[in-house]
């Protein structure tokens, strides 16, 4: 290090000039509660069961695929066959959000796009039960979420880009925005 550099602290001044320049630059911080960052489509947030606009009910067919694939095993389903029509009736569809790790496997394997992780993340509860979503709560989550969205809403994981058509179930191939 030269004598001039040592005495005049040139490298420190250089650094300070950079910070001085940044002082007048546009701030990158976001004042969070007042100002919110737009979320990317397909953000893995709070769970919801999609309310089908045609029937007004959820789309779940009780195939157990989401419960089977869930790495945290936080989805509890009970389904039984209707003795007359032989159709499968979903008795119970519960998600324990406190156990969930938000990997998004459930929405990926769902053949009818019934379960979705919505782009909503500001939720909390005072008790554990508040974050144990049963079927009604999951549908309510969807209703609360969809009113905030631009319609038609389409989640990118309903028909994943770049996955060949043949590898997708029929409902996913035909998936449209709601």
């Amino acid at each position, binding site marked *: *290090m030269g004598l001039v550099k040592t005495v005049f602290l040139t*490298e*420190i001044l*250089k*650094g300070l000039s*950079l*910070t001085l320049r940044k002082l007048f630059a546009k701030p*990158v911080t976001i004042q969070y509660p007042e100002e919110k960052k737009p*979320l*990317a489509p*397909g*953000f*893995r947030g709070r769970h919801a069961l999609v309310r089908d606009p045609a029937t007004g009910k959820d789309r779940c067919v009780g195939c157990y*695929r989401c419960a*089977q*694939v*869930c*790495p945290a095993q936080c989805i509890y389903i009970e389904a039984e066959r209707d003795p007359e029509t032989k159709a499968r009736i979903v008795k119970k569809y519960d998600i324990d959000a406190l156990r969930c*790790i*938000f*990997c*998004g*496997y459930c929405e*990926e*394997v769902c053949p009818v796009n019934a379960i979705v*992780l919505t782009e909503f993340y500001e939720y909390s509860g005072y008790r554990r039960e508040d974050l144990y979503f049963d079927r009604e709560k999951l549908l309510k989550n969807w209703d609360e979420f969809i009113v905030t969205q631009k319609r038609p809403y389409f989640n*990118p*994981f309903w028909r*994943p*880009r*770049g*996955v*060949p058509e043949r*590898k997708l179930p029929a409902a996913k191939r035909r998936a449209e925005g709601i």
Partner: protein
Amino acid sequence: MAQTLEIIQKQKDSEQWDEPYLVNMGPQHPATHGVLRLFLELDGETIVRCDPRIGYLHRGVEKLSEHRTYSQAMVLTDRLDYIASAANNVGYCLAVEKLMGLEVPRRAQIIRVIVCEMARIASHLLWLATHALDIGAMTVFLYCFRDREWLLDIFEEICGARLTVSYPRIGGVRLDFNQKIIDELYRFTEEFPHRIPEYETLIDVNRIWLKRTKGVGVISGEEAVNLGLTGPSLRGSGVRYDLRRARPYLIYDELDFEVAVEFEGDVYSRYRVRMKEMREANKIIRQCLDKLAECEGEPVIAEDAPDLVIPYGKIKRPEPALHPKRGYLVKGVEVPIVPEGEVYFAIEAPKGELGYYIVSDGTGHPWRVRIRAPSFVHISALPALSEGQMVADIIAVIGSVDIVLGECDR
């Protein structure tokens, strides 16, 4: 270093020798980058013995993997080195694919390289931020987090999560990039090389930084190899060893990049290596984006890739055998879901060689998973790096080997 130890030895032999002063550093110490506990035996301000104690973040990832299917175990790898989770996922998927003999489509391979290098930049940025903060440079911390935020936003756009991405799949990736992501990545690669000189202006020639890093924690190349150091910590000692070049995986053999090497082997040269690596990673992303345009519209998941819902045990398939009386198919034979065997696959993760050793017994879940985590090996090198140094230097040494305790304790 050797001289200092000699002096201490002389003092030990003399009659006035007292018991060494024991300092317990951690597990809750802001500069240990997690929950690392160090027993430091001090003589004055010199470290005589350094004894790392680990295990405070042990979650049993390896054991948990044995009771999950191959696809379910992938989300556990997110939580190893949570700063570069995409690289962990890619390493795991590559190991399972090697076991299954799967060929990944080219587009998926390019995308995997992109996310790996994004993870590398994000990891090095966080490393630089915290390392500089430990040593006392606050401004760099803020600038690095600003740019890391940009990368995390791109990750959010790609797969819907910022940190625990779970983006690759066995046989490909979850979904393709869209035009918005590609544009954003082009913008990032344009802008990022101008951001690196900003950090360098602040600390590269800063005399405080130089005094804290130069000649601290010196390790020779030979010693580093013997201790099993990999990644930037090894290349800082002048050993040109990079798995991306030594054992190329994905499409790294087609790419034009240099292996960053520095020769001093101290904290400063490890810092220089990581700064160079960020530039190279940026270059790789740029090349991959150009390659991505060549295979537009191709699938991102292999034809014979397994479904995400993998059966836990073996599955039975009917065998064309005739029943002696009834004359139709009766027997079911067990067929393996994943071929029996064992496999080791290592990738160049941001912190070093990240290897997965998987043993399969033919069922849908691994029989044994062993993870060769670079942080674990690097922590074992801490005594060699820090003994004979000043007690204040241990902070710089811990920072320079870049450890994440989530990966070390698993």
